[in-house]
């Protein structure tokens, strides 16, 4: 989706504002919605790509206006409703539906250290023929899917070189919509900044973008 989340190269957002001695969370509710989002993920009702997409489809003006964790709040509630963990009526009422059985949370405190340390790799050990080789010239496809994609707008149609092959990974464009993992190779593709931004860019600047086989075409 050509959304405002795809910010690479946009202008006019003002200066970067680093904060000295910044806390990890700026308020308790930020910490809680972070943890709620992570914990609900253990139900396996969605995946990280669906989770990202749920933030991308926040109404575009709101996306820019909302703080980071306000977006997490809005996104996880919509996901939880859409994937059947809770009903909208329960959210609006703030109480479980009458007569509904209490469930057992999949993530308990004692499991937190182990699951955090194990992670959830998107790498897949399945055979997949790489469509490109290191050193090959490629073009990022000029495509504008309505759903989730990790091909940034600023790279589409641009020429680059395969810098390294990272191996086989889940494909977010299908996975985000529960249409399968479609595992394929991911490459780091090297783009000259001049190819991306024209002559205003330095000839010594390069942008490396991770791209799946399906984002690329041979030149």
């Amino acid at each position: 989706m050509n959304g405002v989340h795809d910010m690479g190269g946009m202008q006019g957002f003002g200066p970067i504002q680093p904060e000295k001695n910044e806390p990890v969370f700026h308020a308790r509710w930020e910490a809680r919605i972070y943890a709620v989002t992570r914990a609900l993920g253990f139900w396996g009702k969605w995946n990280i790509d669906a989770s990202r997409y749920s933030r991308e489809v926040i109404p575009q003006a709101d996306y820019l206006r909302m703080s980071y964790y306000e977006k997490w709040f809005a996104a996880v509630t919509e996901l939880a409703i859409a994937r059947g963990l809770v009903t909208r009526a329960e959210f609006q009422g703030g109480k479980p539906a009458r007569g509904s059985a209490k469930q057992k949370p999949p993530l308990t405190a004692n499991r937190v250290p182990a699951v955090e340390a194990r992670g959830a790799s998107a790498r897949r050990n399945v055979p997949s023929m790489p469509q490109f080789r290191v050193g090959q010239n490629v073009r990022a496809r000029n495509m504008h899917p309505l759903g989730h994609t990790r091909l940034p707008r600023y790279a589409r149609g641009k020429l680059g070189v395969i810098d390294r092959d990272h191996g086989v990974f889940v494909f977010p464009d299908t996975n985000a919509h529960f249409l399968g993992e479609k595992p394929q190779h991911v490459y780091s593709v090297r783009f000259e900044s001049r190819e991306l931004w024209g002559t205003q860019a330095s000839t010594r600047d390069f942008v490396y973008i991770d791209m799946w086989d399906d984002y690329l075409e041979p030149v």
Partner: protein
Amino acid sequence: MDATRRGFLAAAGAAAAQDLAKAQDHDHNHQVVPSDATLRVKALESLLVDKGLVDRAALDALVDTYEHKIGPRNGARVVARAWVDPAYRQRLLNDASAAIAEFGYTGIQGENMVVVENTPKLHNLVVCTLCSCYPWPVLGLPPAWYKSAPYRSQAVINPRGVMREFGLELADDVEVRVWDSTAELRYLVLPERPTGTESFNEEALAALVTRDSMIGVAKVSPPAGGKV
């Protein structure tokens, strides 16, 4: 989706307002009126706990992990080891996930790590233009500026300008490589070891390494006093 989301946000606000009324009812000495977000998140958490969807102690453990256990000191130790141990540095550049796992730093948002090395003629900068991807096991959760529109938008089109905002001026002949974290690879910059640290041990070196230097918006500064 848009209409329903607005409906939801409005409804959640209404539910929160009831909570606020209740809170004020039983706590007349309450000086600070909780923010709308505080109430809405509290209402959500209570609902999820009541339904048995989340375990409150697990939430506490997750928060504690990122507030107190995992943060940029992890990455600093990795960098310091690479500075003092050439064999480790080579392992780190060849297979970052495995080399970082030697410290026990593994897991969520660091499953597939890549380390990129700065040299006098090459400088690396890491960004996620599409969201907020960041190597949690070595750096913790990202600072607000890293997730902000100004950084996400400018890092790829004007990396030298971004570094200048952080007070880092690179010579024109230095190559700049910006790594846009669009997939499930997570990037850590291996900064240059500063001069004047020849006598420093690993621990003293780690104390010099900043989060910003491992993102690429800063270099590691030489030690102020020259002694540790």
